[in-house]
């Protein structure tokens, strides 16, 4: 078979082949291997670059989220904040409506909550105050999403640019408000420090317990909404193809606007929860980039809200861990970021090996079950 020998020389070194019919066990195995590999590569980095004992560093990193009871509480707090935004963005992205404006929708929600706290805090009973905060936040968040949705539905404007620009408007409004509220003070600080009006009641010792409860509830509701409701079905059809949607008799404009109202309303609610339950303060950093991080959360999970919770946890865990390493070993932030970045890289990268395998030249003729 001289021909074969000849051909083998010219064959491409590596070919990419799609996998089909993966078992669940295999899918899990690939991910476990990815994490182990990430830890090994990280260990090499830690040992050779920083000279520290990798196992100690890992322990510290783990401690960032699980080191103490309060740490764990904080992890949960950050997790639900991120998850909430992911839940908010999921319907929009499932409809292939690129809502990059989560950040702004959260901010305006936080803004009206803060205004209610400042101007109604000592004038109305707390029940009324909470209601006012919640309603205004949800309404203004929905409005912030409605504007780009309406333009897109009627004049086919680009929603990515539009929602993005709405973020800057929101930031400017909040910056202006904060400046007015703080007056001569150097910073605004906590709102209603004396009366604690508009602060959520403590449950299990934490103000943000209500946040956790609300988000878990929303996680289940959104899952059911997207998967089993008629409206969820419409969202999926519109996202797949507007032509198919029209063919099926779906009013595309209506679905687009309705879905963005939901998306914006939940973001606005997020602003309310952040101000009332988490920060009790307002600043331009209130949303803290979660409007963008949540895009990753929503996409990676393929809009399954339960998987969103896992991914949110992973991101928060890595961030906490990096902070902890940086402060514990007085490393600079970059070293810590590299460590968490490597883990993230492997976890995302392993998706490739879940879906594809590589066939190397030497193995190609043996019908390789070869994987990497």
């Amino acid at each position, binding site marked *: 078979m001289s*021909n074969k020998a000849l051909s083998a020389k010219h*064959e*491409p070194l590596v070919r990419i082949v799609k996998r*089909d019919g993966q078992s669940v066990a295999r899918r899990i195995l690939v991910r476990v291997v990815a994490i182990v590999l990430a830890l090994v590569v990280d260990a090499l980095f830690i040992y050779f670059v920083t000279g520290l004992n990798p196992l100690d560093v890992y322990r510290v990193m783990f401690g960032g989220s699980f080191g103490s009871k309060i740490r764990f509480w904080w992890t949960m707090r950050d997790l639900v904040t991120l998850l909430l935004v992911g839940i908010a963005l999921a319907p929009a992205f499932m409809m292939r409506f690129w809502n990059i404006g989560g950040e702004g929708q959260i901010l305006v929600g936080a803004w009206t909550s803060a205004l209610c706290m400042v101007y109604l805090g000592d004038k109305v009973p707390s029940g009324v105050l909470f209601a006012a905060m919640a309603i205004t936040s949800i309404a203004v968040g929905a409005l912030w999403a409605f504007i780009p949705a309406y333009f897109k539905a009627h004049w086919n404007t680009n929603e990515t640019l539009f929602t993005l620009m709405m973020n800057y408007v929101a930031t400017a409004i909040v910056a202006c408000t904060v400046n007015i509220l703080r007056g001569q003070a150097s910073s605004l600080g906590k709102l209603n420090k004396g009366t604690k009006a508009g602060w959520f009641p403590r449950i299990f010792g934490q103000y943000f317990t209500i946040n956790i409860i609300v988000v878990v509830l929303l996680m289940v509701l959104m899952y059911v909404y997207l998967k089993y409701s008629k409206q969820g079905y419409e969202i999926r059809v519109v996202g*797949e193809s507007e032509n198919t949607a029209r*063919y099926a*008799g779906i009013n595309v404009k209506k679905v687009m606007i309705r879905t963005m109202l939901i998306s914006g309303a939940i973001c606005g609610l997020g602003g309310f929860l952040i101000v009332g339950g988490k920060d009790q303060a307002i600043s331009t950093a209130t949303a803290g980039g979660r409007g963008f991080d949540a895009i990753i959360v929503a996409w990676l999970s393929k809009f399954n809200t339960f998987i969103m919770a896992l991914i949110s946890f992973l991101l928060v865990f890595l961030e906490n861990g990096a902070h902890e390493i940086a402060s514990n070993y007085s490393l600079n932030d970059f070293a810590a970021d590299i460590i968490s970045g490597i883990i993230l890289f492997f976890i995302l990268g392993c998706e490739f090996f879940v879906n594809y395998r590589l066939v190397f030249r030497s193995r190609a*003729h043996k019908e390789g079950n070869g994987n990497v």
Partner: protein
Amino acid sequence: MLDSAIQLKNLTKTFGRVVANKNVSLEVHKGEILSLLGENGSGKTTLMNMISGIYYPDEGQIFVDGKPVDIRSPKDAFDLGIGMIHQHFKLVDVFTALENIVVGRGGKLDLKAARAQVTAICEKYHFQLDLDQKVYSMSVSQKQTLEIVKVLYRGANILILDEPTAVLTPQETEHLFEVLRYMKADGKAIVIITHKLNEVLEISDRVAILRKGEYVGTVETSQATEMSLSEMMVGQKVSLDIGRSQPMNTKKRLAIRHVSCVNKEGVTTLDDVSFDVYSGEILGIAGISGSGQKELLESIAGLQRTQEGASIEYIADDGETKVQLIGKTPREIKDLGVALSFVPEDRLGMGLVGSMGMTGNMMLKSYGNGHGFFARRKEPRKVAESVMEELGVVTPNLNTPVRRLSGGNVQKVLVGREIANEPTVLMTAYAVRGLDINTSYTIYHLLDEQKRKGVAVVYVGEDLDVLVELCDKILVLCGGRVNGVVDARHITKEEIGLMMTNRREGAVGNVK
């Protein structure tokens, strides 16, 4: 004896667990036209993709001019003189023919020399091509000619044509075959992939047949008949009889009057179209692609905005109740009790949701039924099960995204759903495009069955042989106007072909 131009030995290609090609060996000689025949999913495209460098075979060897070669990219294929003419043309619309021919060629751009060369090629093989015409103003057949000239200009000696006649009128097909014969006489090796058995018999010297990824054999065309070829292709005897039934109890179902459409660019796509559709009849619609077929069906389905003055009236069974469809959305039409089914041309882009399984797709038009917030899935699943069983849809399960199914199965899902709606009007656009013989005949029989049940069937088709055999009446569109309605039992496809291309002034669409 003829020299071998390209030879394939034991080519095997697998995708995951699917064996697309298994030990395929065949040979094409210089100065020969070989037809590659096979049902959908038989591996024709995979095989051609290996020759043109898009896939690399898992096993086996390709020889060009008797020498073993490795084709790792489309460029390698080009360098070996292999040229592929795809079904979907790869041309730049705003360029002229000549610019399209030279674009992408390395080195210095010398339009003058290129023009001389291209002109020589055109003369040699009798191509009719205006080198200064822009592509956007070309007809489908002109674009195809351009693609062939382009490939020849780049030095191709082995030409592969993927279903070249699918979009052509009989006259254009005849011209293409003429050109192919000139090229054959010049010693080019030509592989032509097609579904149409009569064309296979007419043009090719030999026929190679694939079945389910395996090479069945090569036969001399002179010793083959349509029956023998289809048997080799399918592996069993197939009946090539559409079995058209006589129309019974026909009643006027749709009265279409003065329908005109203008597209976004301001071009008139439908021009004052008027005709009637009867229940218990199949009305065929013939025309060169882009003559207004799509706009016509979409106007009826409530998906197309029409110009002022148009009227589409639906007449219910009692002959009294009339419903105006113009200005209604598909949902409104359905809510008015008009059971209108529509199999659009763009199956996955309009008729189905590619990412959903069969169950999800069965819900597409009925998900809103019933009160309450949640969509019901039980009935759609039952419909999906019965469609799968009755039409023999091959799918791993009811939730496998339909995008992953083969073209024939995708169409079965779509047609199955539209028939399950128990329509009174059933419109289909290119219902059998890209489907194999067996599936095509399944669809013809389904349509005829619907007709016998008293459904008014509208069949937009491109294969004139089928139109003549399947339909009762044929409406011919030409440039957005009705060029006449003819009795399908008393007309030849050549006559229809002429009506498709020659606008008849003052033609009024009416059968005596």
